[in-house]
């Protein structure tokens, strides 16, 4: 386990390092961020001044290492638009996205696990068809369309829930459902196939033969082993949702990282964009690391790969 852990940690570090280079390069793709920051119609001297101020006139490698050194010491630069340190801006927006992501994942799991179990117990039955229909439509529905549909039904028509902003917890309900639906199909399929496999295994047959109550067999014995891969996938899905929350936050005007990213991209606020790219990738890398460790802990065969 020790060697596996060391190798996996090293890999994560390498991944984060390369990702940071990618994040940096992406933002500098246009060649000269100063022109974009100065805006249209800026004079050449203004652009040159911005270029000097932010050090864009230095070679790219020098800029990268300067940025990386700053990041390692916890300094992400300043947002030229918001006139705040990037760390402060992120600290304001990150909790919103974290809460949204947690609620969305909670919603997805509450939907996917019971439905997946019921679908697996009666293959081809009503619940199985419902689960399959939900998985198929959930995969096909674009999240912005689902968001607008929920806004129309629950906000405009029924007046049940607020549709914009993040003032109260109620503001998170519709965005969390939208984002959660995005994660549901994969979790649902995995729960279902895992349960089908486990229910056919020897230890479940034994438990049944001993005459344990059916619900006890399902909940205490079968679900316990079927849920492990689902938990790992949930960790990965959480990471994916952080990246995918841009659309949802944009539609619902939630002031989270996604909304911040979208606005920062539109105003070429490159220090913020870099930081969000790096942060999202870092969270994803750490979550996949945790998922892998969880798998390895529970299934020693995984440690070989």
């Amino acid at each position, binding site marked *: 386990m020790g060697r596996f852990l060391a190798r996996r940690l090293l890999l994560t570090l390498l991944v984060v390092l*390369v990702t940071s280079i990618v994040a940096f390069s992406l933002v500098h793709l246009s060649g000269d961020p100063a022109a974009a920051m100065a805006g249209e119609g800026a004079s050449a001297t203004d652009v040159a001044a911005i270029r000097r101020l932010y050090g864009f006139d230095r070679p790219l490698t020098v800029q990268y290492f300067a940025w990386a050194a700053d990041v390692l010491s916890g300094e992400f630069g300043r947002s030229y638009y918001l006139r705040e340190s990037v760390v402060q801006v992120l600290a304001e927006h990150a909790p919103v996205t974290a809460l949204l992501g947690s609620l969305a994942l909670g919603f997805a799991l509450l939907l996917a696990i019971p439905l997946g179990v019921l679908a697996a117990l009666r293959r081809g039955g009503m619940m199985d068809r419902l689960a399959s229909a939900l998985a198929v439509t959930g995969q096909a529905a674009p999240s912005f369309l689902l968001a607008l549909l929920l806004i129309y039904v629950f906000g405009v028509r029924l007046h049940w829930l607020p549709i914009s902003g993040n003032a109260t917890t109620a503001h998170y309900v519709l965005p969390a459902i939208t984002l959660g639906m995005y994660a549901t199909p994969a979790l649902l399929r995995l729960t279902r196939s895992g349960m089908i496999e486990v229910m056919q295994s020897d230890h479940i047959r034994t438990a049944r033969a001993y005459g344990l109550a059916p619900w006890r067999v399902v909940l205490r014995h079968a679900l316990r082993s079927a849920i492990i891969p689902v938990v790992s996938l949930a960790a990965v899905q959480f990471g994916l949702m952080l990246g995918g929350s*841009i659309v949802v936050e944009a539609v619902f005007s939630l002031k989270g990282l996604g909304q911040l990213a979208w606005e920062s991209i539109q105003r070429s606020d490159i220090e913020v964009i870099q930081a969000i790219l790096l942060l999202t990738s870092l969270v994803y890398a750490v979550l996949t690391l945790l998922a892998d460790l969880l798998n390895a802990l529970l299934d020693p065969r995984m440690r070989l790969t």
Partner: protein
Amino acid sequence: MTPAPARATVHRLLRHGRFWLGGGTIALVLLLSLIGPTIIGQDPTQQDLAHRLTDPFWGAHGTSTHILGTDQLGRDTLARLLAGARVSLFIGVATVIVSGTIGTLLGLLGGYFGGRVDLAVNFIVTIRLTLPVVLVALVVVAMVGSSLTILVLVIGLLLWDRFAVVTRSATQRLAHSDFVIAARCIGSSTPRILLAEILPNITGPLIVVATIELAHAILLEAALSFLGLGVKPPLASWGLMVAEAKSQLLFRPWQIAIPGVALALLVLAVNLLGDALRDVLAPEGRV
């Protein structure tokens, strides 16, 4: 995996309900997007400010000139819907060609050579998975500017991971099979073995992945256009149409529903087709 005789495969496909439902819908969308514009004879970019926001035919003031009504600039909604279908299908298919080529090549190399090459391929896949797709696509389009070519390249460069993973494991299974060893023994070159021996034997799972990524690419283009960083006006895209109609949610919700439902139906059709193909071509496991 023993590939079923071609005729039996086709036969099973033809008896698969979802194949007809999915494939038929896609064919219909393709056909409408190709010949529809000439039939309705409306220019999707022609503005007519005197006839803004007219009702569709079922509305109180519906007309037969604009069957689905007009948008806030007086452009014919049906014409834009058909033009958007072209964009969706073009970007989807072109993207799958790009991502399929990248992913398949990487997967073939990693699966066939194993060892360090495989480690490197794995590492590149991990990097790709670590980068958030929507965010990276938005940043690139914002930095480089958006055109259809750039959108195809960006989405294509972001969606090849599944191709690589599936090709890699399928290639691993075949790398030590008799026919590959035989090909090596008669002195076939490595590219020949990879492209002429292995590749034709893994097309089943690859076609299934292609449908998954086709749906994925269509949704991603729509999301980017919805956020204003995809297809640019005056070109039409379903995502863009939804974004433009967003302010009409209260009074003209159908303006959102028309492109939105079209998009969901097309993606659903692609998924159904993919399901049917998976049942027939790669029944041994979900990819």
